[in-house]
């Protein structure tokens, strides 16, 4: 079975991959089962910190294992940690709201394509350290934050990858967002 080279995976991540090469990957059948491990290897090489990456959840966000504390945290590529992965990382981010026509017109073009204020607000989420834009929501005011993805990491590793994590525990797959926000009030 064909294994996709590390170099190609690097090109996918950096965006340098050629159209022909990306087409070749799209047409692969079956897809290379090793890909996740190559992916992790490339990603680990790219980041400046040492924590072990368990899963890449966004362009710049990773779930990592902290060896010292045993925690599993969301970590930005810049090194900033956004807390336990069971809590929606948006709660640890900064947010800028675009609520007026003028503000929304800076991100939608032309004027006829700009969402209507009052029906929507645009929520831009930033890493509080590097201010990379790590998420965008366009929702009515009053709408709860969307928790884009809570992984069942232990099931992923054991059932889907065949290499169980060694720190499995019962409450790893549990949405703990509301616990955190309760403490704000």
């Amino acid at each position, binding site marked *: 079975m064909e294994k996709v080279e590390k170099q190609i995976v690097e090109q996918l991540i950096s965006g340098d991959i050629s159209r022909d090469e990306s087409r070749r990957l799209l047409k692969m059948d079956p897809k290379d089962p090793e890909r996740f491990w190559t992916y992790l290897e490339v990603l680990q090489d790219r980041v400046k910190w040492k924590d072990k990456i368990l899963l890449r959840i966004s362009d710049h966000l990773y779930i990592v294992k902290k060896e010292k504390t045993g925690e599993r945290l969301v970590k930005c590529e810049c090194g900033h940690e956004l807390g336990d992965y069971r809590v929606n990382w948006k709660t640890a*981010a900064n947010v800028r709201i675009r609520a007026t026509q003028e503000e929304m017109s800076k991100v939608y073009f032309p004027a006829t394509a700009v969402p209507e204020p009052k029906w929507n607000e645009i929520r831009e989420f930033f890493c509080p350290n590097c201010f*990379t834009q790590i998420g965008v929501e366009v929702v009515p005011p009053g709408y709860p934050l969307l928790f884009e993805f809570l992984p069942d990491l232990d099931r992923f590793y054991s059932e889907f990858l065949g290499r169980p994590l060694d720190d499995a525990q019962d409450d790893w797959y549990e949405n703990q967002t509301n616990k955190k926000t309760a403490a704000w009030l």
Partner: protein
Amino acid sequence: MVAATKEIPRNKPGEIDKSIAHKISQRDELTEKTGHYWGIKEFTLKDSDPMKFERFYSRLQSACMAAREISRFVAASPGGREMGEAVWGLASAEGDSIALSEGFVSHSAAFPFAINFMVENGYEENPGFNDADVYVSDDGFTCGAPHPGDTYTYVPIVRDGEVISWACAVNHIMEVGAPQAGSWAMFAVDTFMDGFVFPPTRTGENLKQYAWWDEMWKRRTRAGVVNILDDKMRLAGCAMILKSVHDIIDEFGVEYYIQASKEVIEETRRVVKDNINNWMVPGTYEQSSFRVCLYKGMQKIWEHADKDTLIHIYMKSSIDDEGRFHFDMEGSSKWGYHAFNAFPGGYKVAVMMALAGALGYNTKFTSGGNYLMTSNLPEGCIYNPGTHIAAHSNSWAQMLMVTLQTFNTFTRAQFMRGYMEESFAVCGPWDAMQGEGILEDGTPYGYTNFELLGACAQGAYAYRDGDPAVWFVASQLCNMGNSEEFEQLLAPLFHLGRKLEPGYCGYGKYRSGMGLSTVQWINEPGQRLVASRAGGTCGIIPELSIGMMGGYPSPGATTAIAQGTNLQDLFRQGISPSTLQETIELSDKGILKTKKIKVWKSDAPETNLKQDDLWCQQAEAGGGWGDPLERDPLAVLEDANANMVNIAFVEEMHGVVLKASGEETYKIDEEATVEKRKALRAQRKSESVPVSEWYKKHREERVLKMNMLEPVVEMLRDATSFESYNNHYRTFWHLPDDFEI
């Protein structure tokens, strides 16, 4: 999976029950008990002679493909003939599809719903199914059709009194006979305004429609001739399939046919199951979308419908213990007195579209994958009204978001898994123009122009921009969105423009392809011409709540109508607007003079059009991917030099400063770009607050005071009328127990 039907014993003791009812019940019992389709654990036929098995399958597949490629030329409607907004298929006796042609393949998810309805309602006894009978239906409630514009034909293939298979076809017809002309009655209040809606009806026998059937199309729709030809088209394809299947049965035998068909479907199920295991990541994915329904002031006679509604499409996706995807839609709006409701069959079609794109392409495309897609559709919700009266003329206005959310679940998982080549911001902002007219000679007609049901931009990939004008989420065909035949057929409509709308896309590190704009010039409209907009997302709200990885979700679609213009004067001066944006600019400058110009960021209702009126649409953009400040300045430069972006806009969006270099080109001001990007990043810092701060303020000022538009309040009331969403909403905002939403 369709629920098991109650069994009526049909045979004398000792005789094998070959009724469809019994087959459905056996299938369900065995599938449920074993987790394998029809309990098939061993591929006895496939493994014992794989060449014969593949030869068998390729015969079935070829029959379906040939049916489409030949019969579509029976049609006169461009939708049927040129674009093939249609599909032909072969289903098992129980309705599961075994083989499909090209086209909108996912509409096959509805087949079992129609079969089940007929069986549960006594059709097997009265009138009974004979070989080459013809059944037709377009009803979501009884047939699983997503909406009445999609018309299905079913031809039973019978041997010795036993239904072995169904030859099936579906296409989106030209005109459906609703009070609002076209094929998506956007202002229907209930199903009695959906148009010519009929449950599975026997309309013919021996591959020939009864004489009265043609009369129904002529009497109840505005495009009788075109709809009749579409009907003949579907039947022609089914006839070809029926004949091929009888030949195949003669060659392979009935028992082989039935057993091999089951193995084919089980094979697909296993491949898709493996795909889920190999490409997906388990966990909980949360997404939402919103769709406005602005009826206030438009439905005066129908007071109960005369309101503005915000439809909530809410999905939590996960993978269950059996390795199947589960989509929980609880929290989505309740059904209402508007055109945008749906039924479970149509919903299943929406899910299958996503499956087709991301999980079903490396196998025989049968309904096997559908057995791995389960859902929670609480009764009373917009996907399961629990009443037959709900209008569903345009379920797709909001139900396409089900497809997008499902598909985005898959592409997000592929991204996390490293199969980034597959990851893109899935989008589907479709649009259409429809209506009716009377030609100069008094001939009335109705029409739908599907030219914006395809040629969409594809959303941005995780590693490159999306392409323009290549994509339509419902179909793999590259000629979806072709418009030449529509222009030829629809007398008064002429394109002054059909091109990319500069700057109209979803932005991010990578942008979607540019969206499209069309300008229709109304010329020689005859005695009467009206048009209305039919479409998915409106300009008021993007189609998805979540932008991908820091990019922005796709903008919605807008219509602009200019009436009473000085177009003839402009033509003499060599001026001709070619996009919606140009039309508006010319009007703003006073060059295009109008008696009335209206921009609709919601659904434009039926509008009377006269000579030199202009109908403009701006649609079909896509979503962006990633942080816009990371976009390669060379990519911005390329767009600028192609006149595809607004210079001032991209400076603010991407922090790329361009300066003129020569007459019509730019170059990057490197230093200024570095400074600008620094400044924009600093602005992010100064203009943002920790979410904890925002949360407290937002809760105080908006949530506790219910300080929102009335339709938003109603939407929340609707959503929280369902227990789990009520819980979710209340606990997220930590609302007091006695707080009334």
